[in-house]
């Protein structure tokens, strides 16, 4: 699949994910896409490497360090003695449609999704993410259009199965469409197959406290 992906995540999104500044719904989009896309995974890893280099100390003259408490390491060894090494997440089965990060939210593959009709044969399932943005799965019958849906902010839509087209372009498995709030578009599923997508929208994002408000315009989220 990975070679066929034409529409990728923006660097801005990947940087924000790498820096840990994205909200949960958009993080879910990034994690899902990166699970399928080697190009974006490599790009993300290079941003992580920037974070690592800064942690290691290539930034400002003095590497920031704060001494740990003297008994920290003993406390850690005590914790380690209580619990064994952590297991990795079980690999996704080959025929599964939903990548692992989505399955974590759905509680399984497609069969576990609790769809609700939203009209014209289209169904959706809202995923439980933190406030500030919404993530949902969309089920669009072959040949059907997504009913008029308004979004105030940015909406990212990624194809998981099937394909859709709108006035601007066409999107297959793994492709992400980015629609800003000034874009009006009508996605229509290809007639050959029902289309399943992950869509995330920011109901205008509100960063709180120490989370940088200034990155909002920078990230166009």
């Amino acid at each position: 699949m990975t070679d066929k992906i034409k529409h990728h995540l923006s660097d801005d999104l990947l940087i924000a994910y790498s820096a840990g500044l994205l909200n949960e719904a958009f993080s879910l989009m990034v994690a899902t896409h990166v699970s399928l896309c080697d190009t974006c995974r490599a790009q993300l890893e290079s941003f992580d490497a920037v974070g690592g280099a800064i942690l290691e100390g290539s930034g400002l003259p003095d590497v920031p360090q704060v001494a740990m408490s003297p008994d920290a390491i003993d406390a850690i060894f005590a914790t380690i003695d209580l619990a064994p090494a952590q297991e990795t997440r079980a690999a996704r089965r080959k025929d599964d449609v939903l990548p692992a990060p989505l399955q974590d939210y759905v509680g399984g593959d497609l069969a576990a999704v609790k769809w609700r009709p939203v009209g014209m044969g289209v169904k959706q399932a809202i995923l439980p993410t933190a406030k500030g943005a919404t993530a949902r799965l969309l089920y669009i019958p072959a040949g059907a259009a997504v009913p008029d849906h308004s979004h105030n902010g940015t909406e990212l839509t990624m194809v998981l199965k099937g394909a859709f087209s709108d006035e601007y372009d066409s999107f297959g498995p793994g492709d992400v469409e980015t629609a800003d709030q000034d874009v009006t578009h009508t996605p229509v599923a290809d007639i050959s197959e029902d289309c399943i997508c992950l869509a995330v929208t920011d109901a205008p994002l509100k960063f709180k406290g120490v989370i940088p408000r200034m990155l909002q315009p920078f990230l166009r989220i």
Partner: protein
Amino acid sequence: MLNVREHNSESSALRVPVPMPAFRVVHPLPVGNRALKRKNASSAPKTDPEAPDWVMLIARIRDHQDRAAFARVFQHFAPRVKAFLMKSGADATLAEECAQDVMTTLWRKAHMFDPTRASVATWIFTIARNRRIDMLRRQRRPEPEELTWGPEAEPTQEDVLSLQEESEKLRQAITDLPDAQKELIERAFFGDLSHSEIAAETGLPLGTIKSRIRLALDRLRHAMK
């Protein structure tokens, strides 16, 4: 160089005999790390000759639950992680607790570290960043799928070395950035940018900040070619 150094002066506590760190490797990807493209793996890295071989130490933790190896990693990285968390707004007590969590996670997930895809510093950064999200926002952090291990694909020592060398090159490239760009990149990744702080400190409009970050990343890409 990052060769296994069994005999350096500091290894007396690390006496467990281990083979070369034989981490399993993922299937090679068609795309290399774009910013860290391996152009010339044999070009001499400016590796600090005094720096311990972090990759080997993580292998010792993984294979031998080597506490002395862990202590070395802890000694170097824990104070950096704690500073990172405090920059993000945690007080000293919370940062201490979370930094301990990060180091505990490192021990428990040592088998998941892939030295052909990340340096030890990068790996620790991702663990610390995830802990910070949890600490500050109490949100879940969706993670991509792990790449599936290929049974036949043992990492070559060359792959490990070239990634670690590239990481050192990147570190140097960031060091060489103009101060203004370096500072913004650092703040962006340490997550302590806030609108009012930036405005108060620099008076820069958002557009300028944005373009400086872009410029810095372009420079890094260029430097890595």
